[in-house]
């Protein structure tokens, strides 16, 4: 018994200090370091501008608390919606066999490259009062635009591709060989999905979900276009930051730092979970 096989799923490996990296020219460190600074410096600078003495009262003002609560609530709902719609979408795109699949895969990416403002206008055209579906929805007593529902729709619209792309990539990498074996052992397609496919792509699913949540939390352009900026109803944290910047720059900086903290916490949390699997 001498053959050892690498586990089928890649694991995080710590680099052996004896290994010499090939294909890494020395000069690459310079622009790489510049890039790292470019990302980190503004965040550090943000920290230096914070009025630490008044920080607590700034982030706990009524409008701030309302915005934070609304942001967390809508981003969570959007992420759930993305999971409910996005997981089947990724499955169909990765595993399904039907004409036009490649075209569909490209179309799903559109919100990823579209300016969010344009996304907001597109959503208005569909669900707004005078939109494609808006009129018939109004007959049913549903009014979406400029409501909290609109915030969730706007966030889901921009966040969905992140989940779909990340999960679809993981599904393609995992391949169908395990699924075939599981089916041959008597597992129905749903059992295969639950017990084999999803566990195998779990890291991809987690990172896709985190990306979607982060994108939903930071949504600005589509939200303000499609949902407006009503305190407690549609004014999420990014909108609050933008408004406060005009009247109370210290509050804007404080809230910005809060968003940075939430982002770092989310990434740190999932990074650890992904590594421990």
């Amino acid at each position, binding site marked *: *018994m*001498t*053959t*050892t*096989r*690498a*586990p*089928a*799923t890649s*694991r995080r490996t710590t680099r052996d200090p004896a290994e010499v990296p090939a294909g890494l020219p020395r000069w690459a460190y310079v622009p790489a370091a510049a890039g790292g600074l470019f990302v980190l410096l503004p965040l550090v600078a943000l920290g230096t501008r914070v009025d630490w003495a008044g920080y607590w009262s700034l982030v706990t003002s009524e409008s701030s608390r309302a915005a934070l609560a609304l942001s967390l609530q809508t981003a969570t709902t959007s992420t759930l919606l993305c999971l409910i719609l996005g997981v089947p979408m990724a499955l169909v795109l990765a595993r399904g066999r039907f004409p036009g699949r490649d075209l569909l895969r490209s179309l799903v990416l559109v919100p990823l490259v579209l300016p969010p403002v344009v996304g907001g206008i597109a959503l208005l055209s569909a669900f707004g009062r005078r939109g494609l579906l808006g009129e018939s929805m109004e007959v049913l007593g549903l009014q979406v635009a400029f409501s909290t529902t609109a915030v969730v729709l706007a966030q889901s619209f921009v966040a969905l591709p992140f989940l779909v792309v990340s999960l679809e990539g993981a599904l393609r990498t995992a391949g169908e*060989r*395990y699924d*075939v*074996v*599981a*089916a*041959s*052992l*008597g*597992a*129905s*397609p749903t*059992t*295969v999905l639950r*017990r*084999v496919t999803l*566990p*195998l792509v*779990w890291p991809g699913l987690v990172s896709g979900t985190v990306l979607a949540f982060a994108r939903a939390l930071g949504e600005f352009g589509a939200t303000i276009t499609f949902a407006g900026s009503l305190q407690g109803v549609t004014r999420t944290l990014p909108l609050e930051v933008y408004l406060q910047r005009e009247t109370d720059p210290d509050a804007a900086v404080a809230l910005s730092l809060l968003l940075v903290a939430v982002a770092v916490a989310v990434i740190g949390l999932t990074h650890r979970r992904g590594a421990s699997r």
Partner: protein
Amino acid sequence: MTFELTAVVPSRGFDVTLDVDEGSTLALLGPNGAGKSTALGLAAGTLRPHDGEITLDGTRLAHARAGRTEAWVAPHRRRVALLAQDPLLFPHLSIRDNISFGPRAQGRPRREAAAAAARWLDAMDLVHLADRRPGALSGGQGQRVAIARALAAAPRLLLLDEPLAALDVDVTPALRQTLRRLLVGQTTIIATHEVLDALLLADEVAVVDDGRVVERGPTAEVLSRPRSAFAASIAGLNLVSGTWTGDGVVTASGGVVHGYASHPEVPVGAAMTAVFRPAAVALHLTDPHGSPRNTFRGTVRSVEPRGDLLRVRTDQLAADVTPQAVAELSLVPGRAVVGTVKAAEVDVYPV
């Protein structure tokens, strides 16, 4: 009851009819790309026939006419388990949970599935690995777990796709013997390009080439007396059956073939078959001096080209010799010759 398959898959140039008797093993022997995997895919339900019918124990698994599927049983309802070249153990499940996967997936109670897993862990000598993850296993251990997992699903038909091809040569003999023991009474199709797999595991052999079955029959017959040139090129073994004496096989007529047993603990008197390749045989007109330990006196029956060599068949064996040797010895049908083979070239297996 049996497994029967008649299928045409034009996109793969596949047109094959096969059947396997209940409890017996059929080997599909052929080179890569011959259509062995297509046959297994049709049986497992990962491929649809364009035309044809597949039945197992009287149940129609698939039926199609001119590309229209008229009957179809989903893969998970077929009770046809697939074991591939790679173990493909579920990396997120322990060895125990891998083995109990089939029974659980088929809806059997947790306790029953656990009992099946325990039984197979014991039968395959895997108890000490039960709670490990597959990533920690060697290739041979992994394939043992995969075999246990497939059989724990209690398949009506077991498909083995080159099950030993990815393993180290030092673990294949033991695993082959294990499979041999487990396949007794299990309806099985094994796809392989390795003649030894067919010889040791299969009751019948179908030689597959270019999407067609070119020869079909009992294993010993196909391997030792292939009728078609193609079968001869990939099969073609000399087989001598008898009982084990400790350093050779004594046949019913009293002849002795010296050779080495596939594993050391074979008891004297066991039924064994001596196996050697035609290329290991040298031909002479008179008894040679020196000491090749096995000599076979016979008469030349036929001479056929086989690559750069010529295959000479006597009434006792086949020998692959150079055209020069054939010319020098004037090997024509009817000529008396002596074939010799060194004991070191003879492997002895329980067949």
